[in-house]
C-alpha cells in the first residue's frame, strides 16, 4: 500500500476531536475536549502547531467566527475536517480494523469496553 502521507497519532486525535465537536471546534474547545476525554495534557503551542500543519496539508479547513467578550474581543477560528482529511481518518480506521479482524481467536484475552 503506497500512501502520500501518513497522519500521526496526535494528528488523528485532533482531527477526530474536531469531528466530535462538530461546528463548535475552535482552539479552546478542542484542547478542553482532548484533556477531558483522553485525560491528556496538551500545550497550546503543540495543539496549534498541529492544527497549522494539518491545515497546510489540506486536511483541515478553518473559518473565522464571532468575537466574544470573554476573549477580549478576539474572533474564534473554527476548524472542519476536509474531505481529504476525512479520507485520511477513514484510511487509518480501515487499516486498524483490518488488523483487528485478522487477530486469531483467543489471542486478545481482555474484553473490549463499551
Amino acid at each position, binding site marked *: 500500500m503506497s500512501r502520500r502521507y501518513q497522519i500521526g497519532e496526535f494528528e488523528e486525535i485532533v482531527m477526530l476531536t474536531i469531528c466530535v465537536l462538530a461546528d463548535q471546534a*475552535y*482552539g*479552546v474547545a478542542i*484542547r*478542553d475536549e482532548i484533556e477531558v476525554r483522553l485525560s491528556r495534557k496538551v*500545550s*497550546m*503551542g*503543540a495543539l*496549534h*502547531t498541529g492544527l*497549522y*500543519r494539518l491545515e*497546510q496539508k489540506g486536511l483541515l479547513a478553518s473559518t*473565522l467566527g464571532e*468575537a*466574544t467578550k*470573554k*476573549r*477580549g*474581543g*478576539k*474572533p*474564534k*477560528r473554527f476548524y472542519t475536517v476536509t474531505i481529504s482529511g476525512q479520507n485520511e481518518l477513514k484510511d487509518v480506521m480501515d487499516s486498524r480494523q483490518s488488523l483487528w479482524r485478522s487477530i486469531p481467536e483467543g489471542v486478545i484475552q481482555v474484553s473490549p469496553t463499551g
Partner: protein
Amino acid sequence: MRQPPVWLVKLFTVCSPDGRDDLLGDFIEHFQDDLEYRSYRATVWSWTLYSMSMLKLKIISNHNKVNNSNTTIIMIYTYFKIGRRQLVKNKLYSSINVLGLAVGLSAFVLISLFVYDEVQYDKHFPESDQIYRLAGSYDQGGDGIVESAFTSYLILPAAELVTSEEVTYTRLDFRSGVVKIVDELFIENEILAADSTFFDVFGFDFVSGSPEKVLRDPKGIAIDLTTSKKYFDQTDPMGQLIEIDEKTFQVVGVFNDLPSTTHFQARIILPIHGIMDWYAPWVTTNLTGTSHATYFKAAKHVDIERLATNIEKAVGEKWIGEVKPKFFAQPITDIHLNSDLANEVGINGSQTTVTTFTITALIVLLLACINYVNLSVAVALDRGKEVGIKKVLGAGRRSQTLQFQAEAFLMGMLAVVLSLIMILVATPFFNQITDKSILLGLQDYLLIGTVLIAIVFVLAIAVGTFPALFLLKDSIKDNLSGSRNFRGSSKFTLRDLMVSLQFFLAAILIGSTLVITQQVRFMRNKDLGVDSEHVVLIPFGASEIFEKYEVIKSELQNMPGVVAVTASSVKPTNRIGGWRGYKTDGMEEDMSCPTVVVDHNYFETMGVRINEGRTFSKTYTSDYTESYIINEAAAKFFGFENTVGEKLAGYAFTGAQWSEKNARIVGVVEDFHFASLHNKIRPTVFSLSSEITIPLNWMIVRISGQQIPETLASLDELWRGFTSDRPFYFEFMDDELAEHYQAEDQLLKVLSAFSLLSIFLGCLGLFGLTAFMMRRRTKEIGIRKVLGASNKGLIGILSKDFLRLVLLANIIGAPVAFWLMKNWLADFAYQIPLSAWPFILTAVAGLLIAFVSISYHSLKAAQTNPVDSIMYE
C-alpha cells in the same frame, strides 16, 4: 473577571505568529478558565511557560512565509543554516576556534578596562584640564636635586603677589589623626587640611551643605558619605561635633566619596586656618620647608609656564640660600601616571605599565585573530567541492564569499557571547590582581558587546574573503576533483607567516616575563643592608607620647618577645629628606646631605653593620652634640682619608631653631637602603637625637619571630597604659618595603598571565591546524607507511614543517625581546645583568610545547593502519 497582566499579553503576542488574533483570543479564554481552579499567580506563571510554547508555531509559519517572499532573506537564512551545519560537522575546529577567539577578546577587554581606569585619574573634577599642582625642584648641592610635590606653606602668598585674578590657589596638607566621637576613637589616615579656596579649585559633589560655606569658618569641616555613615550611622551629620586630635570641629558639609581614580584621598576636609597651632614654627616661617602641596586652577588662556617662572622669581627674591629653587606646574590629570616626585601623596601608577599593558592587549587580540583566520581558512579550503558544485549551479563570486563571511560571523558571535560570560566571571579575579575596583553595569556590557561585535564583523569579512579568493580562482575541475595542493611546495605561505607571527609575539612576551621575574626577584632578595623581618614601626603621633618615649622604651626592653627598641626622625621605609649643609676642614662651601636623627641602638635594631669606629653609645655623653655617624657613600662624598675622627661642621634644627653642630665622625656604617632599590643609596649623615635636633617620629621595635600575636597584644596593652586618646597603630617594616614593589609586582602578574595566554593561544591554533593538516595528508602517510617509514620518522616529517616556523619565530623574537628588556631595565638603579639564557629558555620551551601540541595528531596519524588511510575515499 481578572485580565492577564499586560506584559503577559505582550509576551504571548511576541511569541505567536503575526496576524493571528484568534490565538490571542484562545489565550485569554484559557486564562479565564484556568483562573477558576487556580490562583492568579499560578495561572500567570503557567501561562508564561505556555506562551513560549507558541514560538515553534511562529517559527514554522514565518519560515513558510519567507519561502514565498524575499529571496535575499532566504539566501541569508541558508548562509547561516549551512554555517551552523559546518560548525556542528567540524566540532573540534569550531570549539578551538570559538574558545581561542573568546579568550583573546576577553583578555583584550579586561586590559582595556584597566588602562581606561588608569587614564581616567582625576578627570572627574570639573575642568580638570585647568587644575595644576605647583611642584618645586630644590638643588641640594652635588647631584642632590630633589623634585618635591610639597613646597612651603609660604609659596602661596608669594605666588599670589605675582598672578592675576584668573588663578585660584589652594594649599593642601595630607594628615592622619585621631578622631573622637563621644567615647569612640578612630584613626583616620585620609584627613585633608585645605585653604578656604579648596572647593573653588576642586569641584566636589556635595550631598548636603554647600561648598561656599565649608572651610570659611575655622571650625567648619566637611566629611564624605562613608565617614558620615561610620560616625553617625543614620542620624543627620550636619551640625554634629567631631573631635580631631583634641580639637573640636563641626560638620557643615557632606560630600560623595571621592572616586578611587583620584591621586589623593580625602574623607575629612578641615580648614588650614583652624589648625595653625598644630604646625611647628618652621612651617610658617621657613620658605625652604616642604610641608604643603599647592594646587591652582587657571583660566584657559593663562600661560602656565610663565606663571611658574614668575613664581620662581618672586620666591627667589626672598630665598636665603645661594641656589634658588625652580618651580613647575603639573597638570593634575598627569600626576597619576607621569609623576614620581618626593612626597608624592599616594602610590602612583606608571606610564610604562599602562603602555606595556596596552601593547600586550593588542598583541593578545592579534594572536586570537590570527588563530581565528588561520583555522577558519584551513577548514574552509577543504570545501572545494561545495564551491565547485555551487559554481556549476551558477552561484556568483559575491554570494559564495558572503557564504564564508556569514559562517565566520556566526562563529564570531558565539565567541562574543562566550567572552562576555568570561569577562563576567573573571572581573573579580582581575580586580584582585590589579588592585582595582572595576564594576561593570549592564550598560557597560552592552557597550563592550557592541565593540566586540564590531571587531568580529571586520574579522568575519576578512576571514570570509581568503578561502573564497583561493577557491574561486581555481577552475571548476580542480574544485571538484579536490586537487588543490595545500602543502608540498615549500613556498612560504600566508599561513606560515601567521603561525610564525604568533610564536614571534609569544616569544617576546615570554622572554620579557622571564627577565622581569628575575629583576623583581633580584630586588626582593637583594640584601638591603638592613634586616626588615620582624620589625614593627610605630608612629608617635603626638608629642605627649614622644615625651614619654624614654619610659616606654625601658618598659619595652623588659618585655618578653621584644629584642630591641630604637627610634628615628623618619620612617625607615620612606625616601629620606632633612637636607642639611655640611663642611669639612678645608672646604669653602657647604655640601648638602640628607640627615637622619636617630636614637641609641638604631643600627643594632635595624641590623646595619658598622664598618669602622663605633656606634652611638650612652657611655659618651658628648655623642649628643659632638658626634656624627655617616654611611660609606657619605665618606666618599666628603672625600675623607681616615674618616673616623675627621671633623664635620653641620647644623641642627629643632623645627623652630637652627644651631650649629660641629662634631667629629665616630663611625662609618655600611651603605643600606631606605625605601627601595629604585633609588641609589645617598650619602647620609646620622645624628643622635637631642634637644637641638628635630624630634623623633617613629619608634622601631624588633621583636622575636615567635609568638608574634602575643607580643603585639602586649605592645597594644602597654600603649594603652600611656594614652587613652590614641589607639595603638603599627606597621610591619617588610610589608611597607614590599609596597614599593607593587608596580613591578602588578606588571609581573599581568604579564605572566598574558604570556601564558599567548602560548596557549599559539598552541591551540597549532593543535587545530595540525589536526586539519593530518586529515589532508592521510593518504600520503599511508603510502609512506607502506613503503616502510617508521612511526618515529613519520612524526619527524609531520612536525618538521611547523617546528621550523616556531624556531624561526624565536630566532627573530629573541633580539627584539632583548632590546625591549634592556630599555626596561635601564630605569632601575640596581639591575640584573641581561643574559641570553631567558631567551634560549623561551625558544626551547616554545619548541617543546609546540611539539607536544603537534605530536598528538601526528602520532595518531602515524599509527593508523595504512589500509584504512589509503582507501579512505
